């Protein structure tokens, strides 16, 4: 469950204040699949960083599972990222010298979970990569790398999975495979927030939020309510 209320983020750029996010509000209930769309500069990356607790808002509030993120210390934020948030990036962001299994295991090591290896294997099995667990990223194809990244994102059973252009570096067929995995995870109950600028990717989502100039242009959930 995500509750965003009047969220703003202002950057200082050369003595000038630039509002990357300008008072946006929305709620995402558990189990929803949301696509956030917008052109570059629309503020969607900033929103992702705030939702992912990599950054703190200038004003407004962000509640994740009823936790007010603004009140947390940097160690507590690290814990929230570790246990409640799973990241999937456009450029995969795997550790190059670690195997698929070790990459998947990493969040469990930071949370100090026991049986980390078998849990990591389970996560790899969910994305269909258990056979290639001991391969290093440079021995895997782009689609396989992104699947490792997804396994890493879901290994701690997070409250939300944040995916930033997850198909951006993949060909369309592989992209579809990745989106199918996301759909499957969503059907199994995962909350998904996907940032993309591709219409056909956004179609997988049940709700689409369009952004422009740091504000919400349209939100399909709100429109259906009207």
């Amino acid at each position, binding site marked *: 469950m995500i509750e965003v209320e009047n969220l703003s983020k202002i950057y200082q750029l050369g003595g000038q204040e630039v509002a990357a996010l300008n008072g946006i509000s929305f709620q995402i209930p558990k189990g929803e699949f949301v696509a956030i769309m917008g052109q570059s500069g629309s503020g969607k990356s900033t929103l992702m960083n705030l939702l992912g607790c990599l950054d703190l808002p200038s004003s407004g509030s962000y509640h994740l599972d009823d936790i007010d993120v603004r009140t947390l210390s940097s160690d507590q934020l*690290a814990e929230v990222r*570790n246990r409640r948030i799973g*990241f999937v990036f456009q450029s995969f*962001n795997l550790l190059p010298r670690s195997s698929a299994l070790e990459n998947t295991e990493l969040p469990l*090591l*930071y*949370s100090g979970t026991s049986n980390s290896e078998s849990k990591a294997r389970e996560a790899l099995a969910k994305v269909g990569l258990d056979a290639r667990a001991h391969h290093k990223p440079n021995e895997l194809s782009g689609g396989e790398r992104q699947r490792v990244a997804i396994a890493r994102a879901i290994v701690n059973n997070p409250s939300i999975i944040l995916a930033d252009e997850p198909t951006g570096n993949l060909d369309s067929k592989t992209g579809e495979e990745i989106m199918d995995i996301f759909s499957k995870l969503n059907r199994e109950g995962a909350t998904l927030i996907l940032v993309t600028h591709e219409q056909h990717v956004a179609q997988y989502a049940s709700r689409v939020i369009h952004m422009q100039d740091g504000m919400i242009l349209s939100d399909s959930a709100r429109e259906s309510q009207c």
Partner: protein
Amino acid sequence: MLIWDLFKISLRSLRANKLRTFLTMLGIIIGVASVISMISLGEGARQQTLSTIAKFGTNIITVKPGEQKSRHVSSGKVETLTLKDAYAIRDYVPNITGVAAQAYQNGQLKFGNKNSNSTVRGTGKDYGWMANFKMAEGRFYTEEEVRTARKVCVLGATVVKNLFDGANPVGKTLKVNGGNYLVIGTTAAKGALSWFDPDDQIFIPITTAQKRLFGIKHVQSIDVQVKNMDDIETIKQDIESLLRRRHNLRQGKKNDFYVQNSAEWLNSWGQAAKTFQFLLGGIATISLLVGGIGIMNIMLVSVTERTREIGIRIAIGAKKREIRKQFLIESILISFLGGSIGIGLGVLISRAASQIGGLDTAVSLQSILLAFGFSVAIGIFFGLYPATKASNLNPIDALRYE
């Protein structure tokens, strides 16, 4: 995250850049190896000094002719001390247990077809026990033999070995610079020091040495043994005033002799060794410091290179202190491994120095622990800044870093 996991990560990243890791370690290796070998050289010298003190005893005051110079080199007239001075000290200075005047030169020893060039030391009857020589065979010469300048001699262990193949020479006659001398005793081996072998000498009565062998009227030194170490200063003053009177030195005139304690002499020698040790230790410390700066340099490069990795780790939930720990462990690992190799190398160097160079060395456990602790401390000290820098990276920028 467990220390073990961080350790594995560090090891992996060090292995990924083997040459770089080795070059970084090299600074620490050289530093630690020099610390170990320098300290062992100094320690060897110190132990040798201690054993010298033990061999000669510390309760001996030595009177030498001439003026005292800073480096224990006498100058000016060197014929100012006489046997009578020695007897006067024996008769008039209280709280002393023995006096032995000495005159010594190198002499040619001959027995049968065997030759040896050894120190011939003319002394009083008390010299043997005062200088901690134990008798192996026979006896030392007596007061009577000194008074009548008999041609008798006592042989050191090395001389016995060289001229008599270790057989008992007592009763045999030996040629010293051509003259015949009766062997009346031998001394037990004391063991050689690096600069001279106290067993490679023979002892003859001082009077015999002056009149029959060297043809001199003076003595080269007078050893005085004190009863109690606490009286040493008083006795030195007593000797000084007695000799000034005997030499008719008016007030304001400098002594034509100097009085010295053997412990003092050895102390100052030990001081010189210590200064040397400090100097070498200083150089070694500087090289360790340079090694540490090398570690810091490479760690900073490593942090920059792995900015993206750091960003990933922070994004998936690594705390600042875990990032810091990871890089600290890496730098400690470098300095620890470098330190271990350096200790091995240092021990080898000091062994080589003692075997090839003939220098006394002693690798002590303390110096190993010191070098070890120092190298790990350097790993922490010079690793802390890069590690803190890594942990303070902004994850958003770090993830975007190419």
